[in-house]
């Protein structure tokens, strides 16, 4: 099918994009890489009356670094992040996350900001933002604000952004070299959204685990942190036994619904298996 008719505007700057959103009103939408929005428009599941294309705004692209943070412009494409050379465990997480988004000719167009704004509960970028409690910068007619990931993602395809706000950038903390990280996913085919995805990061100091983080996608209306499994790891040695225990706790923390991929038990089993694999396989 074809999309419903709409007006197309190509914004040259953040200011122009915001004033176009204000001018075109609630039924307008921001267009980034189009890899989620255009399929929905082709099926008429989305019928915006105006599209504000922000992909040509240079200020929204690229990766910049401070000693404590990695800031990624919202219009940075998945493929740029997959090929990025950011060092350390955070760089590894960025590349592993990017490389799992869809197929190659989707990663050439789709953007990290588009993924975060779309807020799919099994999206890699939503998982990583939740795992690291990343900060999302949003700008609108009322100014610039920063929202932490746990307040940004509200529910399926819904964020804390208003219709006239633009996602500007996302900031991840730098992780020192004593952190181990991993991404584990299960999908039926390469490039599909994960049925369940697990991301983890933890440091090992003097032989014991500190700051353990586990995020799970695909089991609820947004990405969740598995706080009980995390607590169970604090101060423990990074052994197979401790990882298995945490994985069993992780399974008990989720309450997924059944769907065409399988019953709830199937997803719970996946949470356990993938959590154990992620913890045991984590590396700098």
């Amino acid at each position, binding site marked *: 099918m*074809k999309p419903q008719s709409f*007006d197309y505007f190509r914004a040259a700057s953040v200011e122009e994009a915001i004033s176009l959103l204000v001018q075109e009103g609630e039924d307008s939408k921001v267009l980034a890489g189009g890899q989620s929005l*255009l399929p929905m428009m*082709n099926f008429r599941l989305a019928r915006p009356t105006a599209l504000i294309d922000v992909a040509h705004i240079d200020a929204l692209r690229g990766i910049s670094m401070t000693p404590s943070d990695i800031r990624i412009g919202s219009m940075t494409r998945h493929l740029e992040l997959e090929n990025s050379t950011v060092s350390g465990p955070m760089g590894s997480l960025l590349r592993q996350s990017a490389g799992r988004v869809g197929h190659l000719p*989707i990663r050439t167009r789709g953007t990290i900001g588009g993924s975060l704004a779309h807020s799919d509960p099994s999206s890699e970028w939503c998982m990583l933002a939740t795992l690291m409690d990343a900060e999302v910068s949003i700008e609108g007619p009322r100014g610039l604000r920063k929202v932490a990931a746990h307040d940004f993602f509200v529910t399926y395809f819904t964020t804390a952004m208003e219709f006239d706000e633009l996602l500007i950038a996302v900031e991840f903390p730098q992780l020192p070299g004593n952190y181990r990280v991993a991404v584990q996913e299960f999908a039926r085919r390469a490039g599909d959204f994960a049925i369940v995805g697990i991301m983890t990061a933890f440091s090992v100091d003097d032989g014991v685990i500190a700051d353990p983080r586990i995020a799970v996608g695909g089991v609820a209306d947004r990405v969740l942190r598995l706080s009980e499994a995390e607590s169970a790891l604090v101060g423990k040695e990074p052994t197979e036994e401790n990882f298995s225990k945490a994985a069993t706790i992780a399974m008990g923390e989720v309450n997924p619904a059944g769907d065409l991929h399988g019953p709830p038990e199937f997803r719970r089993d996946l949470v356990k298996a993938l959590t154990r694999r992620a913890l045991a396989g984590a590396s700098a």
Partner: protein
Amino acid sequence: MQVSMNINGEPVTADIEARKLLVHFIREDAGLRGTHWGCDTSNCGTCTVWVDGEAVKSCTVLAAQADGHEVRTVEGLEGADGLDPVQQGFIECHGLQCGFCTPGMLMTARWFLDRNPSPTKDEIREAISGQICRCTGYKNIVDAIHWAAEHPRTNEVTA
């Protein structure tokens, strides 16, 4: 709205509706029917072309988004000295049956080989995982791309 882009080096300008997809612009306004259109949702990959040298699915790009950009389609794959090795590889290895998926396979394969000139067969499978073929079972397509990797092209195709 008025939209202009270079397709295979030729300027194409047309007055179109904003909702026109790039795949339809290529087929209807530029008259290049080599690019196929299957699913409309970035899933099947037969509509794959290059925009500014990057492989993209042209069913999820608006023609308006490509305004002012460089597009290359399967018609632009052949060089001055004949078929591109990926095209030749599909002949040598019988990489197609009905041919519906072939334009997308060729465009993705050439783009991929330019970045990874000597891939393993597993890497080829991963690279074409966004391209669906209902006929071949993929084996001959993977063989064809592998054949092309072993026969580097001599002429440059520029985006």
